[in-house]
């Protein structure tokens, strides 16, 4: 079976562009999950990650400050300032045991969509 990778993604309408502060984040409710969505207006980019900080299991990533480290976009958890790459979710503060899951984001008109891969969406429905 050969499926094109874009076909595996379900796009979920999260909010409008105006709902997310410039250079800041919000938390999006997706089914029983929480996703942190960032409007990195300085770079003209959008990012999404899990909202749960893996360090102390806190639902807080969306309240973190975003920025860059050597050109790589990142977010700092408000609790203990561990930083994570917004591109691939890996921890940038030297803790390779924890990382964030990242999601694709697309903007159409003034709507922001977060991409959930189908098998993931399915497994959540089945769970």
């Amino acid at each position, binding site marked *: 079976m050969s499926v094109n990778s874009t076909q595996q993604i379900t796009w979920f309408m*999260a*909010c409008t562009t105006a*709902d*997310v*502060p*410039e*250079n*800041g984040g*919000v*938390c*999006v*409710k997706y089914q029983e999950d*929480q996703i942190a*969505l960032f409007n*990195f207006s*300085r*770079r003209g980019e959008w990012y999404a990650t899990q909202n749960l900080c893996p360090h*102390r*299991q*806190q*639902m*807080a990533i969306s*309240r*973190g*400050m*975003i*920025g*860059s*480290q*050597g*050109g790589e*976009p*990142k977010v*700092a958890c*408000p*609790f203990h*300032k561990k*930083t994570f790459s917004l591109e691939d979710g890996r921890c940038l503060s030297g*803790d*390779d*045991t924890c990382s964030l899951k990242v999601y694709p984001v697309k903007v159409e008109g003034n709507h922001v969509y977060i991409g959930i891969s189908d098998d993931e969406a399915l497994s959540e429905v089945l769970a």
Partner: protein
Amino acid sequence: MRIVVIGNGMVGYKFCEKLTAKLPAGAADVVVFGEEIHPAYDRVHLSEFFSGKNAADLCLAGTSWYGEKGIALHLGDPVQRIDLVNKTVHSYKGLAVPFDYLVLATGSAAFVPPIPGVEKEGVFLYRTIEDLEMMTAYAPKARRAAVIGGGLLGLEAAKALLDLGIADTHVIEFAPRLMPRQIDEAGSDMLKDRLQQLGLTIHTNKNTVAITGEECINGMQFADHSVLDVDMLVISAGIKPRDELAAHAGLQTGPRGGIVVNDKLQTSHPFVFAIGECALHNDFIYGLVAPGYEMAEVVATNLAGGDKSFTGFDMSTKLKLIGVDVASFGAPFIGPGQGRTLVWQDTIKGVYKRINTTPDGKYLLGGILVGDAAEYNMLLQTVKNKVVLPPDASEVLLGARGGQHSGAGSGVASLPDDALICSCEGITKGAIAGLVQEGCETLDGIKKSCKAGTGCGGCVPMVKDIIEDTLKAQGKLLRKMVCEHFAYSRQELYDLIKMKKLYSYDEVLDELGKGDGCEVCKPLVSSVLASLWNDLVLAKGNDTAQDSNDRFLANIQKGGTYSVVPRIPGGEITPDKLMVIASVAKKYNLYTKITGGQRIDMFGAHVSDLPLIWEELVAAGFESGHAYGKALRTVKSCVGSTWCRFGLHDSVSFAIKVEERYRGLRAPHKFKSAVSGCIRECAEAQSKDFGIIATEKGWNLYVCGNGGSKPQHALLLAADLDSETCIKYIDRFLMFYIKTADPLTRTATWLNKMEGGIDYLRNVVVHDSLGMAEAFEAEMQQLVNNYKCEWKEVVDSPELRKRFNHFVNAPGEKDPQVQFDGMRDQKRAREWK
């Protein structure tokens, strides 16, 4: 070839690191046994456990590292027997592992003197993470504690007890002086004074003969028949090498312990080596990490086919953490005829320095520093590299009289390239400078590429100086840069932002920085903007550049809820207002507590409830307490002359006046104040950033005090001031602080770093030596005029209120993950994992 290592402590780990770096992959099969359950951790910085570090922070390399290097690591499985005939070790869990070479790195244990009662509950050792965890668990029960042993480790343990909240801590030393191996009597006396100021009680010449109590310790008895009631004791009377395993296997050990080794670190059995604190070399046990690392280097090199020998090591040390600098280097004690000794002493500042030179005064042999060890690294290098002393040797202690002495930076420059800077890792000045030239220009970068500064950390200031010097030599401009996005110091940024009249973070980044900013520069710039203009911190464009707490105008708590702290100026509150607090807390189910700052904190508010809660509070006349900001916190007051029979003036009214003047003022760090109505000082003004105490003639103004982890008493800035002058001086003092302090520096630390100290500060504030007094006062007045309650502004703005929602696509809905437990008729945050 199979190499078995017994002991996964600092030296055992270093051996693994060095061996695997020297051998090609797969050349040796390395098996490590460790008795502790943690992989090797930084024992040297063990005490940082009390300043918030945990086992993971102290860990030298995670278990995955051993996996990557192909090392089999057995933790929590001590070796119980070495069979030298069959060259096999047998472990507690029953493993039998044959070896070609065996490396013993079993370290040492705390030496426990045979005092009756040492087995009682409440008696602790200070060596492992477990020891510290047990101390932490026990400490809340203890009111008074003692440490047996006034050496390096004993004093560290004593500081740990203070950090654990036991204010009444005693140090019991058997010898006539503290740190007898490192410092002389005059140095010890000075140290004793300083430690007593920190709150420790020091007993020398005291021999403990018994520990009393039923099951738990309740006291100590001494040879001089005196007694001391204590309910917690830490024994730190020296170390005892862990040679039991070696001795049992028939390896030669010393009469006072230690596994005997030669210059190749071979034991009496040629295929068995001993390194670190268990090894007895030339009748000497090296109780420090750097010599242990050198031993690891020697054995690793030889096993990899090289040829190295261990020929002794320098025992210079610097005491960390205690809040008093103490260092001893080279030969700290010399007898008559061996050379000349120069002593310098300042009993007011509590500083004692001694250096020993060769008889001709040409070379430095060693010395002792108490109270100020800033020159430690330089002096140590001067000894090690046989740098010729200036004709007047006192210059190395006191700096050249001409006044053009340019500090440590020029000192590093005078060292030869082969000067050993990091003795733990054996890194020379030339190697560090080389890395800097190749583009490795930060301390972190240097640590990563050559590990310099990662051992005891004592060389870090020198490494920084070398980086700076090398960069300077390359013609690179040097500043204390904020972060990778701003090539300026905070003070420079402050001046530039003011000059260029920039009002938002993005403008500042566009004009003065590069990249996209980060969690370091965003709050810093936001704080400077707030200090300069006092605009609403949540104004558009500035909101997301605020530290998380400022962005939500509340402190985030465990679990993600927030706390609500209304301002209660001076601690004065009417019954009606109390009722408003009570009803709000009840309505939104908040945990309430009287704070240490004389006001009331309500915890556990959902982010979406914050505007609703504040709407009610604001309507009742409350304002933000700025408990979340780097801003004025509280001005505490005692009841003062309106009720108190001793009160000289109305301290409550003055405290309210002061609090209302500076409320909302943003600064490099938070700041606090208090006003006492007389010298009995019930408001504890002398522990505040600025404190005011009534006198017969007016007010005494104290500045730069601090509670917190490093308490420091405030110093008298000016005496007998009238109210108006007092406020003027505070205006000037605060503006000067706001303009010049480094980020996140409280006033006490700011003063400690200020050249000229309190005298200089007094000249600026009282005698207007900079000619800035008027400008300071005018700027402060401007900020005072611009003050608005930020919570009121949020409550009144639908646009801002929208930001206080957990879910952007389900406004008002609460985070289902937030959970509480019940406790004493209120709630508490569920413990995090």
